[in-house]
């Protein structure tokens, strides 16, 4: 009985690999499918939801009064319409920046306290922001991306993001577009999405944040951009900076129309 099951599995694994050209990509796709069911991102979601409802900070209040763009406390579908312009802050914000803003304004944290551990590392240095981001994004699963460009500052952020995407610099003279502007590019064995097509941008943007198995951590879109900058040898991308938000705006807007599908799981 057991032997038969193993044989069936082995046969299933061999058949597509032998027929397809991009067998490595196929195998990675299968690996992701196998992991999808038990995505540890759910552990971050659960912790984030508890943090959202917990009375915290010097003012001892919850984040439930935080306006993520759809009104105070409305979480459902909020991420699908971010980044956007917030009149109270008079600037365009992405989710992570808005969370920091709420932690400062509502809970009374200092900005540096709110930005402590923006990217977590193991058990001793857990990131509250990553957990909160996991929870809020999970509440937009299945909701079509609908990032607005109606305010002048939203338009400006989009245009700045577009410029940044094509801006070549650093020791390698790389732009984002160098690796993400053509089909079939890869880094090591990982296929890179072509962010200049609607399909590529949608598939990439709607699957962040994601649990990275190789790091054992949940990573947000801010982290993705931060690490891309490091990989292309750019100056360190400051968390919540205009550049980070503008690039996010450009990529999020290009993903419009596709249902949001995160938090996902990636190698």
């Amino acid at each position, binding site marked *: 009985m057991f032997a038969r099951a193993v044989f069936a599995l082995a046969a299933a694994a061999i058949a597509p690999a032998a027929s397809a050209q991009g067998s490595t990509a196929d195998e990675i796709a299968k690996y992701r499918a196998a992991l999808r*069911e*038990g*995505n*540890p991102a*759910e*552990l971050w979601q*659960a*912790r984030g939801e508890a943090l959202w409802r917990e009375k915290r900070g010097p003012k001892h209040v919850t984040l439930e009064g935080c306006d993520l763009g759809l009104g105070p406390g409305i979480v459902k579908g909020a991420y699908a319409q971010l980044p956007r312009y917030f009149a109270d802050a008079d600037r365009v914000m992405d989710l992570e920046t808005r969370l920091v803003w709420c932690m400062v304004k509502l809970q009374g944290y200092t900005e540096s306290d709110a930005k402590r551990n923006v990217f977590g590392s*193991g*058990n001793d240095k857990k990131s509250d922001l990553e957990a909160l981001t996991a929870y809020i994004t999970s509440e937009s699963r299945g909701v079509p991306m609908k990032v607005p460009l109606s305010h002048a500052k939203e338009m400006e952020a989009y245009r700045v993001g577009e410029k940044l995407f094509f801006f070549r610099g650093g020791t390698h003279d790389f732009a984002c577009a160098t690796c993400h502007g053509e089909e079939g590019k890869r880094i090591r064995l990982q296929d890179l999405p072509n962010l200049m097509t609607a399909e590529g941008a949608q598939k990439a943007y709607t699957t962040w944040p994601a649990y990275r*198995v190789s790091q*054992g951590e949940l990573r947000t879109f801010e982290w993705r951009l931060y690490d891309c900058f490091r990989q292309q040898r750019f100056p360190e991308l400051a968390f919540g900076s205009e550049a980070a938000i503008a690039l996010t705006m450009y990529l999020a807007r290009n993903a419009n129309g596709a249902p949001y599908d995160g938090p996902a799981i990636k190698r």
Partner: protein
Amino acid sequence: MSDPMKIRASLVGDSTEVKVLMSHEMETGQRKDAQGQTIPAWFIQNVVVTHNGKTVLAAQWGTAVAKNPFLSFKFKGGAKGDKVTISWTDNRGDKRTDEAVIA
């Protein structure tokens, strides 16, 4: 204190399918930190699952199990509304117990 487990238990035919995500570092004892010091092994050693007070799964784990482990298994029986209780103990003596209702 570790984070709660995420448990899903559902009736599939005449058996109950249980899926559990546990939050744990699962250090192998093989890694070194930035100073070159070995990071001590720290892992879940025993897992016990009970249904209505009866043990349906008992496992001994080691360092080869991944960080934030995912466990999926089935057992015969179980009915909607029954409780499934899962406990783990790690090699430092830390414990965690969570329960879920079969849906």
